[in-house]
């Protein structure tokens, strides 16, 4: 199969055939969507968060639709790294795409346990989730205090054999400080944004819609916030930035690249447009043709030039 060579990007030594990836938690481990979209056309599949042991997640209802998006409080239900390695990883390896495993944990030791377990597996990179708003211990606490983020990054970096991407939370005062902190800890790249903490109340029933009360907001409405944060992060650090948050079109994805991202992840849009990822990759080729641009990397941070 031939691909558009102009779309190749490189993130911390990892070459992707195009900059389009799936956002963790919205694409399972690829299996569910493989019947609907061609995984070979993706730059990378970023898996659902994987922990050291199976996690039950939160009570239901776990989601709520809101204007321009949705809230979720799934709480990182997952089968744990052993089942992932035995079942999901061999499935993903059938496809010509990179595999990036999202890693979650409650403690530094839980993160590094997963990172070590994956060290000799056919995994191309790790995305460390220090930004889940729905998990009380760990998760977001690691992602909102720069010193803690730096420490967990260093621990993961020391334990990992693959490039380490730190996934940042938008629920912070300064995204630049967080990006700098994980860079100082040795991160090979940063990805952002995770969801923005929100709440929805059922007025007729006078109750919280989500069992967890709060949930992470995703979808098109968060896109401008995410673009601004990616721009700030890209100007704060030298390591590559992966942009995500509300992408639902090629233009949405290109905004992130122009703001300074080297690659992008598509999340919530998969739920209502299962072929969106491959369509965005095709749309990027069309954009290069239309504006007579030699290669996609020429666009990275080009809003400044």
């Amino acid at each position: 199969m031939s691909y558009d060579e102009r779309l190749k990007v490189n993130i911390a030594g990892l070459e992707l055939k195009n900059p389009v990836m799936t956002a963790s938690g919205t694409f399972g481990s690829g299996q569910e969507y493989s019947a609907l979209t061609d995984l070979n056309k993706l730059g990378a599949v970023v898996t659902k968060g994987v922990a050291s042991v199976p996690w039950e997640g939160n009570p239901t209802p776990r989601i709520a639709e809101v204007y321009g998006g949705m809230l979720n409080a799934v709480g990182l239900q997952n089968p744990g790294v052993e089942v992932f390695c035995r079942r999901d990883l061999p499935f993903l390896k059938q496809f010509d795409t990179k595999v990036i495993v999202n890693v979650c944990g409650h403690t530094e030791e839980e993160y590094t346990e997963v990172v070590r377990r994956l060290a000799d597996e056919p995994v191309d990179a790790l995305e460390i989730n220090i930004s889940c708003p729905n998990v009380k211990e760990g998760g977001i606490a690691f992602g909102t205090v720069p010193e803690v983020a730096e420490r967990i990054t260093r621990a993961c970096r020391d334990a990992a054999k693959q490039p380490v991407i730190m996934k940042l939370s938008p629920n912070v005062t300064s995204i630049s400080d967080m990006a700098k902190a994980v860079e100082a800890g040795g991160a090979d790249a940063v990805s952002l944004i995770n969801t923005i903490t929100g709440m929805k109340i059922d007025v007729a029933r006078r109750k919280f819609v989500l069992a967890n009360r709060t949930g992470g907001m995703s979808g098109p409405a968060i896109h401008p916030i995410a673009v601004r944060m990616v721009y700030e992060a890209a100007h704060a650090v030298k390591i590559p930035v992966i942009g995500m948050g509300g992408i639902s079109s090629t233009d949405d994805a290109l905004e992130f690249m122009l703001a300074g991202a080297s690659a992008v992840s598509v999340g919530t849009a998969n739920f209502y447009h299962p072929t969106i990822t491959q369509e965005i990759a095709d749309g990027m080729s069309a954009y290069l043709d239309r504006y007579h641009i030699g290669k996609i990397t020429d666009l990275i941070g080009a809003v400044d030039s």
Partner: protein
Amino acid sequence: MKTKTEAVIVSQKQIQDGICDLVLSVPVIAEQAVPGQFVNVFLNDPSKLLPRPISLCGTDAEEGTIRLAYRVSGEGTGTEELSRMREGERVSVMGPLGNGFPLEEAAGRHVCLIGGGIGIPPMLETARVLHSSVGVSGRKGDGEYLTAPTEITSVLGFRDRTFLVPEFEAYGKVLIATEDGSTGTKGNVLDAIRGDGTEPGVIFACGPLPMLRALKAFAAAHHIPCWISMEERMACGIGACLACVCRTTETDPHSHVKNARVCADGPVFEAGKLDL
């Protein structure tokens, strides 16, 4: 294989206050679907991003149509938008989704199809398909055996006004329960079953959680095999997002915890295997 495609509206009418009956031309789904499965309906309003999961009330493989009977959940909702669409308009749908009822479990038994409220429509498709095979037998090993139920009884629970009842009557006996007693037994579906003295050999059911809980207990007490169709808020509809889980008594096959995915592992589960 599930597909996302455009369907054309063949007809839409209101069959009861707040209940719409929609027929869509979408052959690729009509040809594959089995009773108890559902489709995701995508709206054209960009502010309502998530698909609406709606169970199949009917299919016609020859005509290439599926039928959805759904409740309009309120003003300004996605289902209200859907209810305003007319013949000839197009709507995106994905399906067939989920597993469906294990029809083979009805073979040689008196099957009770129990529906409550907006859980009634999927039981109509189940009745139609089971009825088409009543009395059919096949051969297995050393003898003849029934491949179909011996008898179908539909038990339908409504708040007050009924819908779809004459269509169920074409497939066998129908028992009705209404909360206000305006039609049939005053009370719930179990009151109707007890009042009639019906002895189910197997139960397939869909309806509100309290009804399913009561049926699970009834089935366990009488040692009746029982399968129930669950409902939960969904996003993807194909098992990826893990939003729509329900508690199970044993470790679930996907996440190896006790939270099965309603959309992909269900929506139909053996009642005894759920922690309701």
